[in-house]
């Protein structure tokens, strides 16, 4: 009851016309920023901090504005993934896998609407989780020491084979490439620069965003340039068909179990500091693929393949607020920026935040609910508008994509070196596409490889070089068991499946 009363107070704070206006403004700006390649939730929020300060907002108002931007960007990231095969931000990467094929099949409208609903479900359930479980969930985060994190990331890599089933060796190669890229920069555990060739620009490592924009957005532009004026031109450009705007009820129905499961999974990965939304969407996708993809339709435009990562990453966004508010530990890049804002507003996040600043916490949570409904209300009617992007001929669209990529990346770091790196990634992405090497595992390798390595070394250093620490707690053993099972089973299952499928194909052709 106390909980409901607090939440009621929160709504009383959040529902003032100014705060509603801030939420609306944040949702709109966030959606746009999320959709633009290069601008993700973390820099979206960071860029708008000066706006919040200039407007002279109080703590609650500023937080409402900035978290609306955060949720908005999580929603918006999917738009360019689905329409252009260019992820708007890191967590939206997995949405490309089935979202773009759906758009190619003329189901762009359905994919957008469905992913909007999935985003809503994920964000809504995780905000509920935040309300009910935040204090208890802190204990979960405390169960994870370096050894447990290492097992968790190893588990993520073990299921990597699940994403692109076409050629396991190539996805392995791509993941290894990603891990190699993650090694660039000053090693935090020894202070020694690795693979930097004395170039000071590389000391901080390679920014994921630069890699993503290069690999996905620029390589798309290069492919377009290559095919321009040839016969292939007509086929490489996005199709003109837009199809239905709203998904059919059976389609939504088929995704309900997926959304339920991935909400929980995404939320948990959000709660773990360091794992975050990218892991949430990735694990959600690969788990759903293992669970429900009996006919091998994932990757070819399966609606569940769109719903799973979108639910997962939006649920993780809510989950990441748990350690931020309750421990003062950011669970993702965006919450790290939000944390800095909180500190600047004289609010010390930490175990006492819920007691010391209940108005801020509950106002924020109420604002999340409001923002979420606002985003749903904004996104569904706007699907028709978004899909118009597909009507833009590639010869106009592609230069815009290139321009946004350059401006976006330069705008964040102000470094022309990053532009060069982005170009190199663009060319590499183009070459890798020609070789049919999947790009997603590269980014996952970069995102997760670093964390995996660092936690491995932390664990072993703390244990004075004793490797048995890696399997010393029940939780590590459970995680390793899941990892091993998740790695081995698909090898047997898929070979039997493939045999069966081949047989079916033969039956069909016979």
């Amino acid at each position, binding site marked *: 009851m106390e909980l409901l009363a607090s939440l009621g107070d929160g709504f009383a704070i959040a529902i003032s016309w100014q705060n509603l206006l801030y939420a609306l403004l944040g949702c709109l700006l966030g959606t746009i920023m999320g959709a633009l390649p290069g601008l993700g939730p973390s820099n979206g929020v960071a860029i708008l*901090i000066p706006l919040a300060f200039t407007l002279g907002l109080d703590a609650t108002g500023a937080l409402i504005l900035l978290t609306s931007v955060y949720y908005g960007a999580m929603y918006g990231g999917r738009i360019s993934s689905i329409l252009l095969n260019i992820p708007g931000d890191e967590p939206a990467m997995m949405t490309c896998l089935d979202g773009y094929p759906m758009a190619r099949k003329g189901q762009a409208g359905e994919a957008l609407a469905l992913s909007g609903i999935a985003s809503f479900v994920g964000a809504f359930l995780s905000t509920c989780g935040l309300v009910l479980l935040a204090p208890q969930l802190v204990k979960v985060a405390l169960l994870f020491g370096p050894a447990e994190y290492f097992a968790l990331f190893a588990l993520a890599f073990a299921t990597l084979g699940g994403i692109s089933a076409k050629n396991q060796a190539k996805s392995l190669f791509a993941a290894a490439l990603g891990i190699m890229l993650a090694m660039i920069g000053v090693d*935090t*555990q*020894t202070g020694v620069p690795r693979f930097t060739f004395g170039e000071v620009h590389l000391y901080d490592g390679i920014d994921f965003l630069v890699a993503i924009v290069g690999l996905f957005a620029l390589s798309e532009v290069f492919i377009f340039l290559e095919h321009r004026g040839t016969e292939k031109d007509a086929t490489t450009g996005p199709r003109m068909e837009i199809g239905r705007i709203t998904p059919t009820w059976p389609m939504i129905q088929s995704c309900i179990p997926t959304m339920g499961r991935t909400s929980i999974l995404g939320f948990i990965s959000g709660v773990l500091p360091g794992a975050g939304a990218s892991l949430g969407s990735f694990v959600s996708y690969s788990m759903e693929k293992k669970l429900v993809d009996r006919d091998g339709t994932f990757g070819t435009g399966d609606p569940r393949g769109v719903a799973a990562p979108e639910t997962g990453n939006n649920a993780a966004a809510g989950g990441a607020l748990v350690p931020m508010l309750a*421990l003062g530990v950011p669970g993702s890049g965006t919450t790290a920026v939000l944390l800095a804002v909180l500190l*600047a507003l004289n609010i010390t996040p930490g175990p006492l935040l819920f007691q010391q600043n209940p108005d801020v916490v509950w106002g924020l949570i109420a604002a999340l609910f409001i923002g979420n409904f606002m985003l749903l209300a904004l996104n569904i009617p706007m699907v028709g508008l978004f899909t118009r992007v597909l009507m833009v001929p590639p010869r106009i669209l592609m230069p815009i994509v290139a321009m946004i990529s350059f401006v976006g990346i330069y705008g964040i770091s102000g470094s022309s070196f990053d532009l060069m790196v982005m170009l190199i990634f663009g060319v590499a992405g183009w070459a890798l596409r020609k070789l049919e090497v999947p790009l997603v595992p590269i980014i996952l390798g970069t995102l997760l490889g670093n964390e995996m390595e660092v936690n491995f070394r*932390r664990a072993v250093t*703390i244990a004075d070089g004793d490797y048995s620490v890696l399997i010393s707690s029940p939780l590590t053993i459970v995680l390793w068991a899941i990892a091993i099972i998740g790695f081995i089973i698909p090898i047997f299952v898929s070979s039997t499946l493939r045999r069966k499928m081949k047989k079916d194909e033969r039956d069909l052709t016979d």
Partner: protein
Amino acid sequence: MASIARRTTLSLLAGTALVIAAPVAAFEPERTECIAPANPGGGWDFTCRQVGKTLQDLDLIPGTMQVTNLSGGGGGVAFAQVVNKRNDDDNLVVAASTATATRLAQGAYPGNSMDQVRWLGTIGADYGVIAVAADSEYDDLPSLLDAMQEDPTSISVGGGSAVGGWDHLKVLIAAQESGIEDVRSVKYIAFPGGGEAVTQLLAGSLQAFSGDLSEAKGFVDSGDIKVLAVLSPERLEGEFSEFPTATEQGIEAIGANWRGFYAPGEMSDDAYNWWVDQLDTMYDTEEWKAVMETNGLAPLDLHGEEFEAFVNDSISQIETLSKEIGLIN
């Protein structure tokens, strides 16, 4: 009108004693710029934005201070850019902190050194703390350091900076002062931020935490951790006064994470003095005191030559220490 308004604001806000330091008319910038050598949202970015906003509110600069983010190389990209391309820009300042000094000392900005720029002043400092979990067996700093000396493998210290970074060096300074000769034996585990390290302290993976006071505050209030020592010269004021200093426990360790600015090396003397005056004036206002309190900054008021000497000392101290741990040759 503008100048009258400015002087009124100044005298109103800064108090009478400070009006003596009223700006010398020899230099008057048309526009001002602050480079934050990191992405938006980090500590340097906040230094630029907070100071820019306060200077503007106090009418100490004309218009808004433009904040440019120039990230890369832990500040090295911005440093090189200022030295190579903007060396005589009178309107430019760059945010800096202990991390800048640490990297300069360790040669992590290849080819650059501290005398290539002019050091303006500090805007406050965040003092270091060494803390343990609330249920830890150690109740004061000497007992923790004794245990470390007896069996270095038994104590893992975590902090929010890389190996060789400031959180690491603070532990080593304390260890060295307590008589541990081989500081390399001290086990330090690096985390991306102080919050992560405290979480691992609470989870039991670590035995001690080295960080800034502002990072530890929330957990002290909640009773999760206890501060064994704050690395300030004397006890801090207000709510922090309950924390014992390392010095009063017989360990002469002082570690402040200062925040401040440097300016291009060929900046004219007039401009340099103007900037030093503006920062000095701002530092003494009630507005800035409020910002400091909000951000957990303790007083550290060093300007002009005094600050230059301070940076010089701290760089040589870090250099010596880094050589001892084998980080540099």
